Every structure is written in structure tokens, then in C-alpha cells.
């Protein structure tokens, strides 16, 4: 048991320790080559530690608890795989680039936060690690220090902190609902359905996690951040980091209790985002932006699964959403890495590189036998034969189309030099992630309790997965042939509206400043002193 606890703790203590070691410049210089090793304890913990084991730090009355639950373990495991591959990619990526130190520090901060969030079992720890995650991720986004990177970083951290403010309020409300002194997420989720403040808390939770998950209309940070971040960072941000919010939803929302109103609202918002991301994504030209909008769509779909679970009170939604998310971790990570690899590859060697990317990309649309098909199959059980299922099929068609669009733009970004080959240090991590993304969903599927292998391989299921892909492919052909003048939609689409808000805020700020300088005049200040005295006197006399 002690061994298990140690292993569980080492999952985030090791990256955190490495972060502290960065204080020494000599170690910091060597750290890029060690990045791939930091997530290994997390992977080991997932493989070796029994589910539902936990440990606590602190005094008897107040402590931080860490535990491994099933959805958390699933996401942590695949995230650790992605972090390892992306870490290996990053160590190559960082060669001949400035500012190693800052990248490494932000990377380790993000990693610590990411692993910790997956393990945190109480609200304070969850909030702390989420904040650490946000700060580190913001640092990664602005790594290139271009004006657009700064803008992306500002938007990212602004929205993330706003989301955390919502979450903090929700957590405090939840803490007041839990009988006793417990701060455990489990107890909070149990107390939520019967709480008198239920609707307020749910609204705060969904707003907070929705912003972090890029739910439309809070999706605009995703295209900005993922196009600005360095390639390995974009891979882990879009793959692993954003799943923290999904896990938050799974843990906090009362999925075992039927809340039809909320379930419908969440499912509708998620499905809308699933389609919205596809529609806007098709108009984008840069492969990273297409991927970012695909993330908007996929995250929407995962949220829809959770919503359907709430609608029917089906507790299986937790694992289904986690499974779909786990698949998305690997695929999105691999695809972002491929952007970097293809950009360094010339036309001569393009096909061997492009083919794996094509398989996993179309797999996201549900190509049979890939993890994507499996994920959709698992999700389908929850969606049932409702409107939701129809929209899900639409989104599968759209995703196929979007991914083909991505491949087309990806091929066009290949290196000008036909002989160019990407460095092996970039290629291998990418190929490994791609391979893992095909294999791991099947392995995970076997661990999902009610899954049996033959089912997803039946002809009907295969055909159900195949025809949207074929239709998507046909649509793509048609699109490329007949519709040449796509509308230009700026990245982040509705963020344009935000600029107006900023201008209004500046005007208000100036007005407040003028008021302040009037109040700081001597006569004004002394008169307000007298007025306050009278007011306070009146207030206490009238009580």
C-alpha cells in the first residue's frame, strides 16, 4: 500500500521536483532532454496503482486529497503517453531555439498541473492545480513573443481566469452544501442534486468548465492559442490540457441523477458547438486553425455526451465521455505534431509522412477499425435514436470533410525543398503517438466494463461508421471541385465583437480615473470625510 501511495504521489511530485530543480541554471540547461521522462511516473501510476486508491497531505481537519478514479486514470494514462511523446518532440524542437529556460519551466508547470488535476480529489487541490496549469499554458502560448502570440496569451489567460473565478464561486457554494468539513469532489457531487442552490452552482460550473473547454460561444481562445503556441505545446494543450475541463465536468456534475432541463441544455450547446466548429473550420486556410476548430467541434461533442448522460441520469456517460476524450487526446496531439513534421518534409518524402496522418485524421471522423470509430460507437449507446444521434452523424460527416480539408492544407505546407527530411527526433515521437492513438483505444475499450470485442466489429456497426466517412469524402471532392471562393472568416470569429467591448471598457476606465482624480482633490477629500462621518453616524444611530 505504501508503495502504491508513493507511486501515486510521484506522478506529480516528480514533474514538480524537476520544476524546482530548474532554479539551478546548470540543470535548467540540461532539462530539455529530460522532458520526456517527467510524465513516466504518471504512466507507471496508472498502470500499477489500483483504482480508487488515495492519499492525503495535511492536518486532520484540512488536507489535500489525491485519488485515482476510473475516468481520471483513463485520461491520465493517455495524457501521460502524449506528454512523453511531445516531450521527446520538444527536446528536438528546442535545439537552436532561444529561451529554452522559459519553455521548460512553463512546460513542467503545465505538466504538473495537468497530472495533478487528473488526480486531485478535493476542490482546493483541483483549483490550485488548474491555476498552475493555466499559468504554465499561458506561458507556452506566448513563447514565440510575436504580437499575435501575446494577443492569444492575453485572451487565453483572461478567459481562463474568468472561468476560474466562476469555478471558485461554485466550489465555495459546494463547500457550504457538504455536511461536515469535507472538501472532496465526490461529496460535493453527491450533495449537489439536493442542494437549494443547485441551479446556481450548475450554471457556474458549466460556465467555468465550458469556457475552459472552448464551448461555443467561449471557443474563440482555441484558434488563437493553438495557432500561436509552439508545435509540441499546441499538441499537449489541445490534447491533454483541455481535457482537464472535461474531467471537471465528469467529476462535478451529478451524472447519476436525471436533470432533464440541464441535460437538454448542455447536450444542445455541445451539439451546436460540434457543428459550429466544423462549419467555421472548413473556411480556414491554415492546418493549425483547422485543427483548432476541429477541437471546438470535438469538445462540443464530448460535452454533448455528458449532457445526454444528465438528461437520462445515465451514469455510464462518465466513462463514455472519458473514453471519447481519451481518444481525442492522442489523435489531436498526433495531428498537431504532424503539422510540424510535414512542414519540415519535402515533396519527395511527403507520402510516407502524410499517410499515417491521413489515417488518424479520417479516424476522427469515424473510419471503421480506428479508435475514432470505437469512440463514436461507445458514444452512440448514450445518444440513442434521438435527434442527438442524427446530429452526431452529421457531425461525423462534417468532421470527415474537415479532416480532408486539413490534409489538403497540410500537404500544401510541406517544405519547399523537395529533398528536405524532418529530423528523426521529430518524426519518431510523432509516429509513436500516431501508432498509440490507433492501438490504445482498443486496449482501453477492453477495460470498459460492459464492452465486448465482437460487438463493434459486426457488419452493421461497421457500415454505420463507414457511410458518414464515405459521404464526407464525397462532399470534400465536391467542395474542392465546385466551391472555390470560400468566405474568409478571421480566426477566433466572434472575437471581433470582443474588440468593441474592450473599447467600451477603456472609456469606462477613463471615466473612473477622472472621478478618482476629482475625489483626490483636497477639498473633495475633506468634504467626503465629513460626509462619511455623518453617514456612518446616521447609520449606526438608525440601526
Amino acid at each position, binding site marked *: 500500500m505504501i508503495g502504491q501511495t508513493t507511486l501515486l504521489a510521484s506522478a506529480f511530485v516528480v514533474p514538480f521536483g524537476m520544476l524546482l530543480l530548474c532554479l539551478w541554471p546548470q540543470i535548467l540547461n540540461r532539462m530539455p532532454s529530460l522532458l520526456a521522462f517527467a510524465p513516466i511516473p504518471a504512466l507507471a501510476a496508472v498502470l500499477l496503482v489500483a483504482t480508487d486508491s488515495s492519499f492525503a497531505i495535511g492536518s486532520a481537519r484540512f488536507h489535500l486529497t489525491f485519488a485515482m478514479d476510473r475516468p481520471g486514470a483513463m485520461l491520465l494514462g493517455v495524457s501521460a503517453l502524449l506528454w512523453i511523446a511531445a516531450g521527446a518532440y520538444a527536446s528536438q524542437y528546442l535545439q537552436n531555439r532561444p529561451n529554452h529556460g522559459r519553455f521548460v519551466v512553463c512546460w513542467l508547470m503545465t505538466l504538473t498541473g495537468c497530472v495533478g488535476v487528473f488526480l486531485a480529489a478535493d476542490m482546493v487541490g483541483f483549483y*490550485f492545480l488548474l491555476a498552475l496549469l493555466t499559468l504554465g499554458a499561458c506561458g507556452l502560448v506566448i513563447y514565440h513573443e510575436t504580437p499575435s502570440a501575446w494577443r492569444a496569451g492575453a485572451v487565453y489567460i483572461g478567459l481562463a481566469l474568468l472561468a476560474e473565478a466562476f469555478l471558485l464561486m461554485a466550489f465555495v457554494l459546494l463547500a457550504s452544501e457538504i455536511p461536515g468539513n469535507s472538501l472532496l469532489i465526490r461529496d460535493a457531487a453527491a450533495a449537489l442534486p439536493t442542494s437549494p442552490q443547485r441551479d446556481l452552482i450548475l450554471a457556474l460550473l458549466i460556465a467555468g468548465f465550458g469556457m475552459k473547454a472552448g464551448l461555443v460561444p467561449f471557443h474563440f481562445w482555441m484558434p488563437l492559442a493553438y495557432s500561436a503556441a509552439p508545435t509540441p505545446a499546441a499538441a499537449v494543450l489541445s490534447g491533454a490540457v483541455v481535457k482537464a475541463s472535461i474531467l471537471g465536468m465528469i467529476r462535478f456534475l451529478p451524472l447519476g441523477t436525471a436533470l432533464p432541463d440541464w441535460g437538454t441544455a448542455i447536450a444542445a450547446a455541445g451539439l451546436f458547438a460540434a457543428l459550429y466548429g466544423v462549419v467555421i473550420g472548413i473556411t480556414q486556410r491554415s492546418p493549425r486553425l483547422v485543427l483548432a476548430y476541429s477541437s471546438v467541434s470535438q469538445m462540443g461533442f464530448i460535452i454533448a455526451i455528458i449532457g445526454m448522460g444528465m438528461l437520462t441520469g445515465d451514469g455510464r456517460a462518465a466513462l463514455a465521455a472519458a473514453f471519447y476524450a481519451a481518444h481525442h487526446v492522442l489523435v489531436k496531439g498526433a495531428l498537431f505534431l504532424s503539422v510540424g513534421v510535414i512542414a519540415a518534409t519535402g515533396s519527395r518524402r511527403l507520402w510516407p509522412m502524410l499517410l499515417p496522418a491521413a489515417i488518424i485524421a479520417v479516424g476522427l471522423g469515424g473510419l471503421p477499425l480506428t479508435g475514432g470509430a470505437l469512440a463514436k460507437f461507445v458514444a452512440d449507446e448514450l445518444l440513442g435514436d434521438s435527434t442527438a444521434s442524427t446530429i452526431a452523424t452529421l457531425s461525423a460527416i462534417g468532421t470527415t470533410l474537415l479532416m480532408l480539408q486539413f490534409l489538403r492544407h497540410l500537404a500544401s505546407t510541406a517544405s519547399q525543398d523537395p529533398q528536405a527530411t524532418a529530423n528523426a527526433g521529430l518524426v519518431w515521437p510523432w509516429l509513436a503517438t500516431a501508432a498509440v492513438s490507433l492501438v490504445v483505444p482498443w486496449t482501453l475499450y477492453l477495460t470498459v466494463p460492459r464492452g465486448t470485442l465482437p460487438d463493434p466489429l459486426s457488419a452493421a456497426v461497421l457500415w454505420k461508421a463507414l457511410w458518414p466517412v464515405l459521404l464526407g469524402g464525397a462532399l470534400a471532392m465536391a467542395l474542392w471541385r465546385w466551391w472555390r471562393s470560400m468566405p474568409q472568416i478571421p480566426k477566433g470569429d466572434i472575437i471581433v465583437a470582443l474588440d468593441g467591448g474592450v473599447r467600451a471598457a477603456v472609456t469606462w476606465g477613463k471615466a473612473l480615473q477622472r472621478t478618482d482624480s476629482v475625489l483626490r482633490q483636497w477639498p473633495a477629500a475633506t468634504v467626503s470625510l465629513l460626509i462619511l462621518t455623518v453617514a456612518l453616524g446616521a447609520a449606526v444611530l438608525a440601526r
Partner: protein
Amino acid sequence: MPDANLLPDATTTDGVFLVLAIVLPAAGVLLSFVLGGRYAERIALVLLPSGFILATIILVDVWQSGHRLVYIVGDWKPPLGIALRADGLSAAMMVVMAIVFCAVAIFAYADFGTRAGSAEARAPFAFWILLMAIWGAMNLIFLGGDLFTLYVALELLTFAAVPLVCLDGRAETLQAALRYLIFALLGSILYLVGTALLYGSYATLDIVLLSRQIRAEPATLVAAALMTIGLFAKTALFPLHLWLPPAHAGAPAAASAVLSAVVVKGSFFLVVRLWFDVMPGMLGGAGAQLFGALGAAAIIFGSVVALQQQRLKLLIAYSTVAQIGYLFLIFPLALDAASGQLQGSGALTGGIIQAISHATAKAAMFMAAGLIYAALGHDRIAELGGIARALPMTIFAFALGGVSLIGLPPSGGFLAKWILLEATVATGQWWWALVILAGGLFTSCYMFIVLSRAVAPSGAPLKLKTAVPKYQEAAALALALTSLLLGLVALGPIDIIEVGRPDSIMVGSR
């Protein structure tokens, strides 16, 4: 006159430490005047760490015994005599202030130290004496047991703080000091009228005796209102903050750190003493909401104006205006609607942790700003580019201080915010929760602006005016780390603040 035998107030075993805490700084100031010159610095550098040890002893004593330490001066019992009392609240504040003083002393050694062989100057001499005087005045504020002693302590504090503002003798700092002095005097006169009225009604100013006799009469309530507003003026609570930005932004870095971290907390502490200890049942709903409204206005105005500052030190000064606002939110949150009493747990604990975490964080930030100013020769935010590469430790300290102000875990700011938010939920006053959360967002905005400028590359290669000593950076970083890790006290003895309070019910704040 109450029967003296009924008073539980008698000098406790370790009461003599309380006298030492006041006599040490006073002796240091007097000795420095006698010996003169460079001895002031040596005396201060010896006495300040011993003050920290002394404060720690008092804290441990209070914690272990579970009741307050008392010393009856000259064995003359109140109401005629003067009592010194240390409860958990004052002991905790003393320790934190001692930490800040020690860090400031280390930091100031670079700017105000007289090296062997160099000529003695007046500014360093004055600085060390004033530092010790502020320390003594603060200890008296924390320990003083009657309202008139506290008045004297408050005046000592002001008289020691004002010259710190204009230590460099420039015209604008002299003006800032003069405004500060006159406005503070106006505040202290109001306080004095209040004490006169209270004495007229109860024939005692001793806190414990008063709290037993206090009645809700017009004279008492008017006195309380006068004293409170006087203290607000000295705390620079919005809209009475006219003196704070120029004074805190103009002073030398070490002085700014003391003024922002320590001095404003003195008068805040008296507001707490007055309403929580002397007359916990007098404030009433309307009064408490007025306190809260002023605090909320301070948070919003201070933060928004800070966002628009072009100079770093002014930005930090306005951030102080905003952070002071949080301290006054505790009044509506601590008010128990059923009994009309201010409760000495929960929100009060949150407010004190906020005061402590702000003290450490803000001192670190002013020190960092001072180092940046020294290195660049200016503190214009728009031109900070490249400084993060030149002074990484300084910027790190600044950022950690900011993390605490924003209220991210595990900082003390987070713990305070959590406790205050819990209190808003418990009392159903959601509007204060909005203010608390919005304040955090504003704070992160201005921190982002400053840090993004600081880490941006500089156009031209950066030439530092002076080399910054490592120990100065270390002092700032140590304070910032203290503030960052303060949240971890939640894992330990957070109840210390409630020890020795009349209404202490050890509920804890989780």
C-alpha cells in the same frame, strides 16, 4: 468603579515579553540618537531580528496557553492604569510585521547602509531610526490595551511614517509628505474626539472594561463613528486615499515597502479592535454595509485606476488602495444577522490573512519595483522591456507577489478569498462575492500588463545603471515566497487568530 478583584486582568507569567516588545524599539531609537551616525544602522540590524524572535516567543506562548498574555504596567490596574494585552490576533500580526521589518532591513542595507570608511549621511541615520520607531509604534498598537494609549501609538506611527516619505528631500515628496501629515492629523483629531466622548460616558478607555459596559447610546455611537472615520483617513480607505498614491510611490523603495505593508495596517487593526472587541454589537446592518460599500468602491476604483498607470510604483500604490478595500469587506460578512454581533471567526480570520498576505506580497513588490527603478533609472511600464532577462529573480518575486494578490492557490491571498467567499455564502450576501471575484480579475489584468512588458525583449541592448546586489533580490523573493506559501497555514494553526477573543468559539474557517 468596578471591583478590581473581579478583573481577570493580572500580569501573566510571560507578560514581561510584551513590555520588551515596546521597550526594545524605543531603547533602540534613543540609543541611536545618543550614539549617532552609523550606530543607528548597527542597532537596528541587531534589534530587528531580536524583535522577530520576541514576537515568535509571544505567539508560541499565546498558542500554547490558549489565552492572552497580559501585563499591567506598574501594577496600576485599569481603569486608572494601563494594560498591555496580546491575543492571537495581535501576536500573529506582530510576527508577520517583524518578518517584513527584517526583510526590509536587509533590503535597505544596500541603500541606507554606511560602509566602513565612507562619511555618515543624514538620510540613512534618519531611515534606521524611523524604521525602529515604526516598529515600536506598531507593537504598541498591537499590544495597547486602552484607546488613549492606542491614540498615542497611532500618532507615533504617523510621525515616524511621514518623514520616511520625504527622505530624499525632493519637492514632490515633501508635498506628498505634507498632504499625508495634514490629512492624517485630521483623522487623529476625529479619533481624539471619539475617545473624549467615550471617556465622558464610561470613565474608562480600557478595551476590556469598555466592552463590558458599552451601551448603545447616542454619545457612544457618535464617538464610534468619529473614531472610525478618523481611522479610515489614516488607512486611506477610498474615498479618503488622496495622500496614499503620491506618498507611497514617491518614497524610496524600502520606505514604500514599510508604508504600504505595515503602516496602513496599523490603523486598520484599530478599526478591528474598536468594532470587534470594544463594541461588537453596535455596528448594525446599515453601518456594516457602508463599510463594505467603501471597501468595494476601493477595490473597483483602485484596480481600474491602477490599470491605467504608466509608472510601476504608482500602479503598485493604487493596487494598495484596492487591496485595502478587501479588508473592510469583513465587516458586513462578520455580522451575525440574528444577534447583531460581529463574529470573531470566519470573515475576521479571512480579513487578517488578507492583511498579512498583502503585507508580505506588497512589500516584496515595492522592493522589486525599487530594484527595477535602480537598474533602469526609471519605472515607466511601457519601457520595461528586457528587464526580466537582466533581473530574473526580481521579476520572479514581483510575479509571485502578484500571484498572491490575485488570490491563486496556495497563496495567502487565496486562503483569504476562500474564507471571505465562504462567509458571503453563509450570510447570503452574494454581491460582495461579485466584488471579491472581480477584484481578482482586475488584479490579474494589471499583473499581466506589467509582466508582459517585463519579459518582452528590449529594443536596444539593456544597460543597467547599477548592479543590483543579490541579497536585495533575495529579500524581496523571500517575502514573496512567504506570501505565496501563507495559504499552507490552513494545514496548520489557523485558529491562532481566534485565541483570547471574548467571543472565541473556535469554529474555524476550514
